[in-house]
């Protein structure tokens, strides 16, 4: 990846220079051709998002860079913000140019004090260098970027909650439709893109969609930043070409395997909102479709390894507490469901649960995943549910046998 790049005068913004010579449609065609999918976790095609936003009429549009990175185990955006802020900025500018926005925001989670410091400086410098402001690189393109510091709510990673937060409202999801593309920030058409998506977009315009599509698989183009953490020898951020490796190789080769005198009990392949995979399930290709076939999801790219020294109960209680603290409290299934899940997880008997409580958990899970208003609720039980399914003997009194 090379050394960090922090100084605007040392960075040539090749992608942006190219983008400024293209019509918006041209930029969008390139991104669509690349097959880039949103890297925040939901995986919506970036080019399609931009195309929809471009089609929206109206004087004012916004681009928002989502740097709220709240998914537990995820710290790739932090890496980009600290080490490659100019590339992120370049991505924002390209996106703005593509959709016709002259104003944008970068929303960085409040706990990221270092990235906030760095990016503030990046904006200041870019303004001095003429990369931000009027007539960027001598073109007719003007752009103003504002940094907003998040207040530390997980739900603000959801784009509509994030928009509410920028507007100064409670960080709660909005009813869709209207989608942000139609009426987002201050009711204007708004594109919200993840940090990694924007950095990737900058590189795609720079190196061309053809180069990018040469990497990865048909359904998972290009590369992905992954975050290894948990009970693993070499935690950190790694860039992996989709389809070039398996989860097992990532864990044992890149990650150096489990800690000394330990072995993996299970892994969480895409952040806390994804289902666990057991050691037997690790031979799947690392791609959106590969992880899905194994029964989970690639999510944000956070791979958390859990070693044998951890009790399942401890994990469950921590996860339950997390979602109870982080549900925005607006829709009933998520608010009440996560409250009760936390309560039930505390009601164990030597680390195990009665079947009737497991049944209640299953019903609450169905209600939340089926009826919650946003992605937070819908996925909040994915991990816990998978642990009960995969480790019934350890968690259910009677082993789940009826």
């Amino acid at each position, binding site marked *: 990846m090379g050394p960090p790049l922090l100084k605007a005068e040392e960075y040539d913004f090749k992608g942006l220079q190219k983008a400024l010579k293209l019509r918006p449609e041209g930029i969008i065609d390139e991104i669509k051709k690349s097959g880039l999918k949103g890297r925040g976790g939901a995986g919506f095609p970036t080019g399609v998002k931009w195309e929809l936003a471009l089609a929206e009429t109206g004087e004012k549009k916004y681009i928002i860079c989502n740097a709220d990175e709240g998914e537990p185990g995820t710290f790739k955006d932090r890496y980009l913000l600290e080490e490659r802020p100019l590339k992120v900025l370049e991505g924002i500018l390209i996106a703005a140019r593509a959709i016709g926005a002259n104003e944008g925001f970068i929303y960085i989670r409040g706990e990221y004090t270092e990235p906030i410091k760095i990016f503030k400086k990046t904006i200041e410098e870019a303004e001095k260098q003429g990369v931000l402001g009027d007539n960027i690189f001598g073109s007719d393109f003007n752009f103003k970027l504002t940094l907003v510091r998040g207040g530390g709510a997980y739900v603000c990673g959801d784009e509509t909650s994030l928009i509410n937060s920028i507007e100064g409202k409670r960080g709660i999801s909005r009813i869709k*439709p209207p989608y942000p593309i139609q009426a987002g920030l201050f009711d204007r058409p708004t594109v919200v893109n993840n940090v990694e998506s924007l950095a990737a977009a900058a590189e795609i315009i720079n190196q061309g969609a053809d180069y990018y599509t040469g990497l990865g698989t048909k359904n998972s183009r290009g590369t992905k930043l992954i975050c290894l953490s948990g009970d693993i020898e070499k935690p950190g951020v790694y860039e992996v070409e989709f389809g070039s490796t398996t989860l097992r190789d990532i864990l044992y080769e890149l990650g150096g395997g489990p800690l000394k005198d330990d072995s993996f009990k299970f892994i969480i392949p895409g952040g806390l909102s994804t289902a666990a995979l057991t050691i037997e399930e690790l031979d799947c290709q690392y791609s959106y479709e590969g992880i899905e076939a194994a029964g989970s999801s690639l999510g944000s790219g956070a791979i958390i390894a859990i070693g044998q020294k951890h009790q399942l109960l401890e994990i469950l209680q921590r996860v339950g507490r997390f979602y109870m603290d982080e549900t925005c*409290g607006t*829709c009933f299934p998520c608010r009440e469901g996560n409250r009760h899940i936390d309560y039930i997880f505390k009601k164990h008997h030597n680390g195990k649960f009665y079947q009737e409580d497991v049944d209640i958990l299953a019903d609450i899970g169905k209600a939340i995943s*089926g009826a919650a208003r946003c992605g937070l609720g819908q996925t909040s039980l994915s991990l816990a549910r998978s642990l009960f399914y995969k480790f019934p003997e350890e968690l259910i009194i009677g082993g789940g046998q009826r």
Partner: protein
Amino acid sequence: MIKLIIDNQEISVEPGTTILEAARAAKVKIPTLCYEEELSVFGGCRLCIVEVDNKDSLMPACATEAEDGMVIRTHTPKVRDIRQTIFEMIIASHDISCELNCLTCSRASSCELREVAEDIGVTRMRLDPIIRGHSKDFSSYAIAREPNKCITCDRCIRKCQEIQGIGIFANAGRGPETIVTTFEDRGIGNVECTNCGQCIISCPTGALHEVYHYDKVWEALYDESKHVIVQTAPSVRVAIAESFGAEPGTVATGQLVAGLRRLGFDRVFDTNFTADLTIMEEATEVVKRITENQDLPVFTSCSPGWIKFIEHFYPEYLGHLSTAKSPQQMFGAIAKSYYAEESGIPREDIVSVSIMPCTAKKFEAQRPEMGDDVDYVLTTREAAMMFKSAGLNLCEQDESDYDELLGFSSGAADIFGNTGGVMEAALRTAYHIITGEELEDIEINAVRGLEGIKEASIKITDDLTVNVAVANGLANAHRVMEMLKEGKEYHFIEFMACPGGCIGGGGQPLPTGNTTRQEVREKRQKALYQIDHTKKIRRSHDNPMIKKLYADYLGEPGSHKAHDLLHTKYTARGIK
């Protein structure tokens, strides 16, 4: 029109119709808790989720527009199961315990949770109750709040913000700790609440209710040494029968009088009498101010919710208010002076009770400038509770007449309960004061109806055409005030805090069944106009008892004595 299929039934609806509305048109009831017609869609309770063909996820019917060709199933096993689970969770955190059970709840007979439970067909209740331990808010003279019963559906928040334009409630706290509260948790009595009680009407549970006076009234009724008199507001007679299963708009004047007598009130009088008196004083004042061009436009002052609103939000306009007290307070003042003297009962032995469609009247009665003229204020709902607990079904009572002296009224007084009614009644008398003749078209249709803001120009003489406006609902009052600020000119404006006026008051029976709020208001409104229509005397200045009161006691409208007893002043409160 678009066509869709709901539960195997084809239906055509206008584009823009939600699935929920389409289902109602198809005669299928989808359960809801956070939804309320007239308020913005919240999409929080998720009870209205339905299955839509070719959609991966379940769709909230309240927030999803019907599309051409949609195939919708509203009561599949999956959906019904999820509704049950959501309902189980709502109940678990709803403070139902042995000490605090449903029977003692203010909404024992009108609980929406119970209704929804029935609609869902709840068969299980497995969750341990969650103890939340919020303290009750008794800071207000009018409205009490029990947060433990709140399900955070935010209907009160939206009602106060959207219909009343105020917004005293907001969410605070995070996640499951999310609560509805007032600014800085100050309590309803310590923020800019107008006491209108519209939040109570919107609350699906017993989390909001009026501050009760009925226990004090029982005490007075059982006290042999007290002479307990009661007055009934115009719009109570067309609403109270609803509490006994009758249709909205059922007129139960005689039954109400009979029932009150059976409860033990020593005299049953009518607020209508002092509504006529209010018109005499107010119309005299309006005519004087219009002819002298003094502090125009004149604002009506009968609605205590409106009074508190202007005191908080437009204190610079207080000089525009008519100084006439409201009919409730005029009644109290006359009861404890003229009536006391006439009947030879010492003032301190008289207990003066009012039955009002209103919660703000509870606040009004305790305003320091009002003294003890009105001791207790019962809402229509409280009066119905008292009847029930005395074994009286109001609908079964034989009709009876109000007592003499303070019980006789003109038709002009009846329509006080409708938006536009005070204006119409005042114009009937103002016309007479100015011209010495009677207004020919006594029914002034331009100020009737339920629109939020109405305007009319009434020709009085060749030289004088009076421009009037009528606003109901405080958001509309707010709009009219802003119009004034922008330079719009009127002579006389009627303001009522509640949608539809007193007939839609915060103390009225809650809507039941499938009748919409608008339909309820329409029916009650029609009933009041009908009472006026059939009365022989329809102008306040023609009321012989009013004439007698002036002749015997007050002198003439606007006299020194009338001012002492019947006029008041206001307090600039501002926003804290």
